[in-house]
């Protein structure tokens, strides 16, 4: 199995497979299906300071090789996550977990990240900076290098665990934002979050999602994700968790060749709940097919 291990910000993963935040709950639903300790780790549902109901429904729409979601960060709030979800998670998952943190102001991010940082089970803080900055006129933190750096630095100063900043792909220059986060102290970058999209219902002539727009994910976005991981790999030295449309062991290898050290799997879990287990099982065979003895050797391998 050592041929699958990778090192993510100082923590060894048995394999690079990480179910992506928002598609794996707090793990225990999937633990009914298979032993989730086979995973590298997983990123739990985006957690905020206060409980959030999220957006009105419909929150889901379909598109060619993809789906849109406008869940709106439904979560029970950081206190309930710590008191209720983490204990349940511990029952089914022995490894360090990735704590996905969202917020609508720098203070919120810092608060939530600090609360989770001290939890023993938490291995990494994953800062989801795709959220709108309420203090900054509602523009997402992740859309400017300055704001991204600011929130990264503020959280960095308060947490001890490795800090991974998760970038929004809805930007002109992803590399500049990744670099700004690295310079501000991030230990890793994860990308991509969803692409902003929408659908309209021809029958009602209204937007399908109650929230108007939502985030596109699934195989449709794989080429965009690969390109952004590629650009980010060129710009930063810290490890990258690459994601966006990954649905097979071949996709995992492609993402690693583009520059990812670990690979997130999102929407695919919703369609095929066993996909992460199956990908981990088929990885060695796929590696053999392409002459890869050790996954660590191929990280960024397409950069020549």
């Amino acid at each position: 199995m050592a041929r699958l291990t990778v090192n993510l910000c100082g923590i060894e993963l048995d394999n690079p497979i990480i179910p992506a935040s928002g598609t794996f709950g707090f793990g225990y639903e999937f633990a009914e299906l298979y032993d989730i300790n086979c995973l590298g780790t997983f990123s739990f549902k985006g957690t905020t300071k206060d409980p959030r109901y999220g957006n009105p429904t419909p929150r889901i729409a379909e598109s060619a090789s993809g789906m849109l979601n406008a869940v709106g960060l439904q979560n029970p709030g950081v206190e309930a996550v710590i008191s209720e979800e983490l204990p349940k998670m511990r029952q089914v998952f022995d490894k360090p977990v990735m704590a996905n943190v969202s917020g609508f102001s720098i203070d919120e991010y810092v608060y939530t990240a600090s609360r989770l940082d001290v939890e023993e089970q938490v291995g990494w803080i994953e800062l989801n900076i795709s959220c709108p900055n309420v203090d900054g006129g509602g523009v997402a933190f992740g859309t400017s290098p300055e704001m991204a750096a600011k929130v990264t630095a503020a959280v960095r100063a308060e947490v001890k665990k490795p800090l991974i900043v998760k970038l929004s792909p809805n930007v002109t220059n992803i590399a500049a934002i990744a670099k700004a986060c690295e310079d501000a102290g991030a230990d890793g970058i994860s990308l991509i979050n969803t692409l902003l999209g929408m659908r309209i219902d021809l029958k009602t002539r209204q937007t399908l999602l109650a929230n108007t727009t939502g985030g596109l994910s699934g195989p449709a976005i794989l080429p965009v994700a690969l390109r952004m991981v590629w650009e980010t790999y060129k710009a930063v030295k810290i490890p990258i968790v690459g994601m966006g449309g990954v649905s097979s062991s071949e996709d995992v290898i492609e993402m690693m060749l583009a520059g990812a050290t670990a690979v997130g799997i999102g929407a695919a879990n919703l369609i095929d709940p066993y996909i992460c287990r199956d990908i981990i099982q088929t990885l060695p065979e796929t590696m053999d097919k392409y002459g890869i003895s050790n996954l660590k050797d191929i990280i960024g391998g397409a950069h020549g």
Partner: protein
Amino acid sequence: MKESIFRILTNKQIAHDTYEMILRGNTEHITRPGQFVNIKLDGFYLRRPFSVCDLEGDDLTIIYKVVGSGTEKMSTLVPNEELNLLTGLGNGYDTKSSGKAPLLIGGGAGVPPLYWLAKELLAEGKQVSAILGFNTSNEVFYEAQFKKLGVSTLITTADGSYGIQGFVTDALTNLESFSYTYACGPEPMLKAVYDAAETSGQYSFEERMGCGFGACMGCTCKTLYGDKRICREGPVLVKEEIIWQG
């Protein structure tokens, strides 16, 4: 929940735009009427949810209405084709609380789960009646099947082309007293039944789903008992907890 491959035994049109499909596979995770299956279709990213209409050993019946491109595609499938299903999804109806004379009220594509529910309630020795509502005569299905079970069945059509003219609630006055209500259908129908029915009851809801098994929070609704996922803590809600949205 279980993911497994089912083989199509039959797939036939039973009313206007309405098809009955019988599938054979591993049904052991399907435990209650009102549960649903989530079907993967080639060429579509999301699965499609359908209520279990009947269950006989390994054979699962669903009834679906063609409303979009996925159900359109389903209508072209032929016996022996295989489909990947997630089974055993949702809470399903609780038959215990029904009292002696439960009433089932279904509208259009909401009728199917009531069929298996009726069978279960009858097996528990209850006296079951049903009101099944449709838009027009050529959309009516399963009247004979319900009657054959021994369910006293009333049909309504909105245009009066068959059965009682009007909505399901217009048929309520035609009924002897009943002890409990099970309802499934479009939300305006559910609301009308909720308002009209004096008994307690269970109501089955629909929502657009990402996963169908509780992972994505795509289908959440507010209830008086807290936020619930239609796919997991639903699709059946008890009357007492329902909050109607704008």
